[in-house]
């Protein structure tokens, strides 16, 4: 057995047994963050906090929700909403949180794209982040099934049908995923399991990985400058705080994060208390009915862009386009052939690529919400084609980019 001295404080007692001082040093006080950043660098911690809020509100919803096709709808819309004390609060926090978390994810992603924070050693940060995006998408979809309203049912029908692979007619696979010919009890139970256990576990694991991948390359900065972290850390520790290019993650950087979080949570709770309806589709307040499709099916806003990539084409082409759109962002670090890590504004044609991609995804999002008719259909088709044209253009324009 190891030798232990008598401890003089609780901190020391813990340090002897858990090395908490070392942990604190490695994870907080000597984890260095460059100074040259802006509020967009706070989005990571904003996301972590939002995930925490989703987890807590979800735990309370779980106390009254019933994963049964007969009772699910009422357990949400009657029991939780009008019987359970403050049940409405958890539901609105959970619904608004699920929607807003995607807004922050997209801001976080496009920040990374703009500043080139996905290459030269930062590839794994990007890949694990994209893994989180996929896991959050699955989490959002499975959660959307649970109130068992009309949109739950029909979104479940349409999305699981995607797995038939168009002309491949893999109906067996679709029935296997559902556990029935149509979404029913088996489907609701297994998506409940995915939503409350398996996918959250995967998300927590991926968050740990995502933080881990940051450790060695460190976070990027506004100029894409290669900071000598050892030297900068030495200056900081010597007390030359002003001369040093870095600050410790905690408490210095985190205190800035907390400021951004404060502003964010004012907005967040404004939405929760006064505008929660944007996250609550009115059609989903009708109970699921397998014999009546709602006149207009559309996903939540954060899936609209990929839905619009699917929609203007025939089944097979649409499915292939959709499948590519789901994974193409994973390839970003490998399709960007330029050696420059710099803000898009200094990267020649890439500047236009960045804004064109952002604009195109906004157009796809708006078109996805509109009915597939007339001029909207045509604009949607052009935007979908532009999406792929931009990805084809990316390796070409970045290969020609001048080294800064």
């Amino acid at each position, binding site marked *: 057995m190891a030798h232990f001295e008598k401890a003089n404080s609780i901190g020391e007692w813990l340090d002897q047994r858990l090395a908490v001082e070392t942990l604190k040093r490695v994870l907080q006080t000597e984890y260095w963050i460059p100074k040259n950043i802006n509020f967009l660098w706070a989005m990571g911690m904003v996301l972590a906090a939002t995930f925490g809020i989703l987890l807590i509100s979800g735990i309370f919803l779980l106390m009254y929700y019933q994963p049964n096709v007969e009772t699910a709808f009422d357990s949400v819309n009657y029991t939780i909403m009008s019987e359970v004390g403050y049940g409405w609060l958890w539901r609105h926090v959970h619904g608004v949180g699920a929607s807003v978390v995607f807004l922050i994810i997209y801001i976080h992603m496009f920040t990374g794209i703009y500043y080139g924070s996905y290459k030269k050693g930062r590839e794994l940060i990007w890949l694990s982040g994209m893994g989180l995006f996929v896991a959050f998408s699955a989490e959002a979809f499975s959660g959307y099934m649970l109130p068992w309203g009309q949109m739950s049912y*029909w979104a479940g*029908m*349409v999305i699981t049908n995607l797995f038939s692979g168009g002309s491949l007619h893999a109906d067996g696979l679709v029935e296997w*995923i559902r556990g029935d010919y149509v979404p029913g009890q*088996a489907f609701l139970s297994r998506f409940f399991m995915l939503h409350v256990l398996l996918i959250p576990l995967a998300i927590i694991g991926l968050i740990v990985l995502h933080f881990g991948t940051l450790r060695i390359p460190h976070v990027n900065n506004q100029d894409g400058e290669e900071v000598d972290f050892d030297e900068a850390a030495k200056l900081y520790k010597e007390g030359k705080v002003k001369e040093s290019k870095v600050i410790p993650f905690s408490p210095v950087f985190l205190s800035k994060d907390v400021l951004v979080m404060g502003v964010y949570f004012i907005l967040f709770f404004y939405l929760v208390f006064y505008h929660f309806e944007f996250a609550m589709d009115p059609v989903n307040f009708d109970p699921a009915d397998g014999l009546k*499709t709602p*006149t*207009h099916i559309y996903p939540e806003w954060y899936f609209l862009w990929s839905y619009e990539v699917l929609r203007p084409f025939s089944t097979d082409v649409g499915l292939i386009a959709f499948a590519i759109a789901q994974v193409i962002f994973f390839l970003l670090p490998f399709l960007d052939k330029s050696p420059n890590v710099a803000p898009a504004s200094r990267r020649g044609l890439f500047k236009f690529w960045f804004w064109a991609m952002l604009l195109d995804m906004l157009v796809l999002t708006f078109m996805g919400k509109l009915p*597939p008719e007339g001029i909207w259909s045509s604009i949607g088709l052009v935007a979908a084609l532009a999406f792929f044209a931009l990805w084809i253009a990316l390796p070409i324009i970045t290969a020609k980019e001048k080294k800064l």
Partner: protein
Amino acid sequence: MEKKRRDFMGLSLGLFTAAGGVGALYAMKRTWDPLPSVKAAGFTTIDLKDAPENVLVTEKWRGKPIFVLKQSKEMMAKTTEETKKRLIQIGDAHYMVSVGLCTHLGCIPGYDAEKESFLCACHGGTYDATADVTKAPPPRGLDIPPFKIDGTKLVLGETGPEYEKMLADGTTLAV
């Protein structure tokens, strides 16, 4: 010698673990399969005798909507050799019977009796009165459920000779 023994033990452990892993994966796959009770509840009998002309009747089979549309004389006049194959003939009457889920992604198309056509509101596909596709994205007409004719009744879920013929000549895909 020591090394060989360790390699052997490592290999044995690896193989046993792999075999167990494959077994566990198979068990997991089977757990996700539709239950026997779900599979067994797959038969429904519908009576076509009282179906009105050009009025869409919706029945239910395996949780899916089943469209029944008795064709009027005018509707029959519009059919072609190909689309006629999609209809079920009982006596002199012709019936369109199909699974009422769009072959694109499974929404339920709505029927417009004046235009004598179906429109799927999800992605804008259309079908004629025999449920044959007239506008993409749906890749084909509505699927016809397996049926067996029994007098004026249809047993859905069972396979009769008329249905087998439809399958053989590619009028419908197996559902």
